[in-house]
């Protein structure tokens, strides 16, 4: 990649500098010690199992899933919904950092923005895996195909998800690039994008909720509470994931950072998890107190219906996990004892994954619109593809974090071309250098 044209005397166009940065970042991100290779090989193996399952699904048809004309969406759409929330949840670092000028959060906000990138890529992959004809994907591209905008909420989702991905790629890419070049970032190049990303994060989960709650034929989804409920739970699962991620990075880099940020995130979760639970309780009350045949889905979910109770263990596990997490988060010692903190985060994360996935998508189809009961239990193919996409997401997040750490620790920096020498403190402002 060394380019003879690059010389100190000749200014190199910015876009070529950026490409060089991207190449450097990529080629160094795949370098590492044996632990790194073991981790990445493991993830690659899981991903390949998923890729193979998907290839077979495309060849043999969606009949290899457990979905049917009665339960026409399943594990893929469940994961998609949860992951859009995870992506939106990263904004709970951005808001304290940029709206409340929390310096400690500001320093490491990029951990949340990178999570948004990985989570959005995963959510898009789950939608693609749910398509019966992925070869016709181009039909959805504006200009090329037919884009049913603004009537179809799915087209809104395509726009907001891709937009959110681009915004976050720009913010992270720009800040890392500037630090790679040893230049202080220019505020007007990224701060407007940061504020846009805050609004946009809310929009991705709102639009995703509108996909479901706008359908009059599915009473279980047809509630105005769905979007707020999605947001509240996203603001639990996002921060919970980030709290654990910060500790793993600390452990791997051997550097202590982010204690203040973790406290802020815990404070956020203490509120959002209660709001989330309150909304679940509110929904449950309306469903069961009102009664009637519209309660069928809720009855099926929580207690089983006419001897069919496939989802009952799922939802009670979710509730048990979430309520235990609430109790743990409310303990003052959650801030001193990592074991309690991490247990709480894990329980909340898994609990919400169930509640917003299997517990949110499937009951809308059982009983069906004509009150037939056909149950759904994900097939092995669906589990393989799901595991594969999660593995790919972890790979992406690992590589992104690795590049970021290398650039911030100055292990990876631009050593050619015209150099703007800036003291490291100057670079520390606003570019998330606090954790190295």
């Amino acid at each position, binding site marked *: 990649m060394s380019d003879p044209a690059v010389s100190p005397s000749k200014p190199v166009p910015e876009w070529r500098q950026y490409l060089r940065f991207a190449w450097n970042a990529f080629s160094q991100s795949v370098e590492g*010690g*044996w632990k790194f290779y073991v981790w990445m090989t493991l993830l690659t193996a899981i991903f390949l199992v998923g890729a193979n399952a998907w290839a077979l699904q495309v060849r043999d048809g969606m009949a290899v899933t457990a979905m049917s004309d009665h339960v026409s969406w399943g594990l893929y759409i469940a994961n998609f919904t949860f992951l859009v929330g995870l992506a939106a949840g990263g904004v709970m670092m951005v808001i304290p950092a940029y709206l409340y000028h929390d310096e400690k959060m500001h320093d490491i906000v990029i951990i949340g923005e990178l999570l948004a990138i990985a989570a959005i890529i995963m959510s898009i992959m789950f939608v693609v895996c*749910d398509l*019966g004809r992925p070869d*016709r994907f181009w039909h959805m591209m504006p200009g090329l195909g037919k*884009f049913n905008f603004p009537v179809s909420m*799915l087209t809104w989702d395509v726009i907001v998800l891709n937009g959110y991905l681009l915004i976050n790629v720009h913010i992270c890419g720009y800040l890392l690039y500037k630090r790679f070049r040893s230049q202080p970032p220019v505020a007007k190049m990224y701060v407007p994008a940061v504020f846009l990303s805050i609004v946009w994060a809310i929009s991705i989960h709102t639009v995703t909720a509108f996909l479901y709650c706008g359908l009059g*034929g599915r009473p279980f989804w047809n509630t105005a509470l769905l979007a707020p409920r999605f947001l509240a739970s996203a603001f639990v699962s996002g921060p919970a994931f980030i709290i654990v991620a910060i500790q793993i990075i600390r452990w791997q880099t051997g550097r202590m950072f982010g204690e203040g940020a973790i406290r802020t995130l815990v404070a956020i979760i203490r509120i959002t998890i209660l709001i989330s639970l309150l909304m679940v309780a509110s929904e449950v009350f309306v469903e069961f107190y009102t009664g009637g045949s519209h309660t069928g889905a809720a009855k099926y979910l929580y207690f089983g219906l006419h001897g069919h109770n496939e989802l009952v263990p799922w939802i009670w596990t979710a509730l048990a996990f979430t309520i235990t997490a609430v109790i743990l988060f409310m303990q003052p010692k959650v801030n001193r004892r990592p074991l309690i903190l991490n247990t709480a985060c894990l329980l909340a994360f898994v609990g919400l994954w169930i509640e917003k996935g299997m517990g949110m998508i499937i009951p809308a189809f059982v009983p069906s619109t004509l009150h037939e009961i056909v149950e759904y239990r994900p097939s092995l193919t669906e589990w393989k593809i799901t595991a594969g996409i999660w593995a790919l997401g972890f790979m992406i997040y690992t590589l992104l974090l690795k590049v970021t750490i290398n650039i911030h620790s*100055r292990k990876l920096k631009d050593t050619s071309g015209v150099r703007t020498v800036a003291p490291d403190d100057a670079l520390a402002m606003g570019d998330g250098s606090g954790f190295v």
Partner: protein
Amino acid sequence: MNDPTPASPKTSCGSGCSCASAPNDEGNSTRRSVIKGLGATLGVAAYAKALAPLTELTKETSMDEFLQKHYKELSKEEIATVIARLTRETKEKYGADVTISDPKPQEGVKFGYALNLSICNGCRKCAEACHLENNHDRASHQSYIRVFEMSKGSMDFEKGNVHYDHPVPQPDKYYMPVQCQQCEHPPCVDVCPVEATWKENDGIVVVDYNWCIGCRYCEAACPYHARRFNWQKPQIPAAEVNPDQGYLSNRIRPQGVMEKCTFCLHRTRNGRLPACLEACPTGARVFGDLNDPNSEVRYVLENKRVFVLKEELGLKPQFFYFFDE
């Protein structure tokens, strides 16, 4: 992040950045390069193997099909080419000689369907006729019509049963066949992200089977369970394939796309009656032009006690139920 020795020398990436290897590291670096090259090769091989099933698809989907435009954008000549290709492919894949037509809506006609619940006896001949007429997959016994055995005194589907298996009619029951209601405001059309489904001028909601991406959002949106997905390639013995096919109706659907009742438009647009009506032994089904004041369906609407399913949803079905007495 998983690098336990961040300070250890690295292989040069040749870019002149500070990650370049130390000068005395040559041998080590070569060995590493070999191992990495091997790893990369194995990796590529594994990816190729994992995704190999996709290559078998090229036999199923021709380049012409891949690049085919939306139905509404095809010219007369283009549609003729497409139909010729589909006819040829049906011969190749199913061994059947078929004629695929593309009948257009008749000017000023708006189809409506009415069903007499007083005389329907639940024999399910309509569902069977649909299965045969519309070239449904044989193994799954697919049909666009589901017949519910309902308890007298209740219109609640929760008390209905679609899997009844005894002589009909039972004295304390009545029977309610449900198929696409051809809504005036079809939610399935609204939600489709690629406009692969739309309402034609004669009121029939159709699907372009060659444009649908198979996201199944329409299936989630339909309150009448009227839509079906091709979970796999439909299987029909050559002798059983109905050769009288319509491009937007009963031609054999590809794997992975949506389908639905089209009021048998390949028949009804040519002055014939839907297959389900012809099969009905009781005369419970009435089909016709809602715009024609002398049609039988108009007589029913004006003189019988008529209702539509789930009227409260405001979708204005063009499928009506009525009672005689």
